[in-house]
């Protein structure tokens, strides 16, 4: 008689204890149970609801891989309600693609942002031209929810993904002569039609700058994405600056050059209208723009039932982190 033996379980099929434990940790963190990662103050990248049929921007493959292991550090998350994704990607000031806020989203879709190179030069130990991938690779991507205040009087709250500026700059070993950092946007009139415009007062390419201690401040950030994905071209793909205590125009987009300098760079808006836009451009409700008040702002999206007008805070609410940088400076003069 043939007695059918119970099939033996192969040892290889048994989940090892270590894997089992890893899985438990994974499940706990996936469920958002704080205890699972109690010793660490980081959490996985926020998942955003697929709220609408707005276009998505996954970014190049290397970025997608990197996004998997991104983290959300504590202390950099504004409590404000997020501006919806569709508004963040359709309401942009990116003059290279058009003066109207709806134009960049229409005209930047074919903008080539991969491959991309960034040139590091000036007072620095390791100058050179770097592929964006190599530029970003050594760093862990972080998610930061920052408020953004435009000098025109509107504001948004955006979940950026990117790397702390200080970590990047240190890698290139700035010398003791490096007192400022200058950033430059791509100049390519074929792709950026407005750089050919006869009716604009701005000089291209767009240039922005930071003082070294501002650039080294933990708040200063280089974004490579938003809302858990890549950076849409209209938002400054593939690399843009985010300095939330300053007016939006300091957040230079589509960066191709980072230069360390001894002297204060001349930023584009300051060059165009020095009476209206300074080098520092710190958010300051006390100092009005010569043509309008900066005391309040309209948080977007605005609704016809409520103008969503709120009072603007000094250094846009980041005074605790950055106010010390400007000790002893007359901020009514250094606009």
């Amino acid at each position, binding site marked *: 008689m043939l007695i059918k033996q119970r099939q033996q379980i192969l040892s290889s099929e048994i989940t090892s204890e270590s894997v089992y434990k890893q899985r438990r940790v994974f499940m706990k963190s996936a469920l958002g149970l704080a205890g699972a990662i109690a010793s660490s103050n980081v959490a996985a990248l926020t998942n955003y609801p697929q709220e609408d049929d707005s276009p998505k921007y996954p970014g190049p493959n290397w970025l997608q891989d990197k996004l998997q292991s991104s983290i959300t550090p504590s202390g950099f998350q504004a409590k404000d309600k997020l*501006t919806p994704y569709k*508004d963040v990607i*359709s*309401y942009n000031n990116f*003059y290279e693609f058009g*003066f109207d*806020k*709806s134009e960049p989203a229409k005209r930047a879709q074919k903008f080539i942002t991969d491959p991309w190179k960034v040139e590091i030069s000036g007072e620095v130990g390791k100058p050179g031209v770097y592929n964006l991938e190599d530029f970003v690779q050594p760093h862990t991507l972080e998610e930061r929810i920052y408020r953004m205040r435009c000098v*025109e009087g*509107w504001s*948004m709250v955006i979940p950026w993904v990117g790397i702390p500026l200080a970590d990047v700059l240190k890698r290139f070993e700035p010398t003791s002569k490096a007192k400022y950092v200058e950033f430059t946007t791509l100049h390519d009139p074929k792709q950026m039609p407005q750089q050919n*415009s006869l*009716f*604009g*007062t*701005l000089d291209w390419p767009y240039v922005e700058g930071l003082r070294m201690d501002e650039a080294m401040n933990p708040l200063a950030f280089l974004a490579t994405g938003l809302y858990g994905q890549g950076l849409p071209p209209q938002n400054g793909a593939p690399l843009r600056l985010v300095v939330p205590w300053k007016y939006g125009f300091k957040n230079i987009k589509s960066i191709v050059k980072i230069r360390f300098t001894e002297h204060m760079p001349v930023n584009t808006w300051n060059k*165009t209208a020095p009476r209206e836009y300074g080098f520092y451009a710190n958010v300051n409700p006390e100092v*009005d723009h010569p*043509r*309008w*008040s900066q*005391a*309040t702002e*309209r948080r*977007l*999206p*605005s*609704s*016809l039932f*409520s*103008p969503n*007008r709120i009072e603007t805070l000094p250094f846009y609410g980041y005074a605790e982190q950055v106010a010390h940088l400007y000790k002893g400076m007359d901020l009514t003069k250094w606009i």
Partner: protein
Amino acid sequence: MDLKGKWLQRSRWWLIFTVSALPVSLLVYSAVNQQLGADPAKEIVLELGTWAINFLWITLAITPVRKMFGWNWLAKYRRMMGLYSFVYAALHLLAFATFMVGWNWKILIIEITERPYAIVGFIALLLLLPLAVTSTKAMQRRLKKRWSTLHKLVYPIALLSLLHIIWQIRSDFSEALTYGLLLCFLLGYRFYQSRLKSASSVKRSAGGIKLKTQTN
């Protein structure tokens, strides 16, 4: 005028009246269907303001176009175009106060007094008011000669409106330039015509003197 001509004229009136109301209708439609983007308030305010200026420029264009092309029927529509300009300008301010400021008087006063372009815009609208009020035929008859003097206010109003645009330029000046060139033409035409007129009247009076000397 025969019946057919009257009917044609009436339908033309309704056509122009309806087309002029299209911008605001489209705006209401887009707002209801949430097609105005992240900042519908600003979109509405900008659009209404743009059309207030468009209609002001159209009002100023009626006379030159009528004379150049001999389209005398246009004269009838100058009042309507002017009134549309006033209505769009009034809606523009109303939309600004409602959608962008929420009738917060403190902010409204700051916004209007601290933004120089808002001050000139506000003055232009205030000046449009008496023109709208006195736009009826009855008022025209009552004011007689003073009516046309009063309605010359349209020139400073147009200049203030242009200033209202110029003072908002941040980088792009194509719009201001377009309106500016058009206004140059519209005002230049009038200046040229008045020069022609005074020249011919000088000629006439000079001729008169000559005639006089001849008879002596």
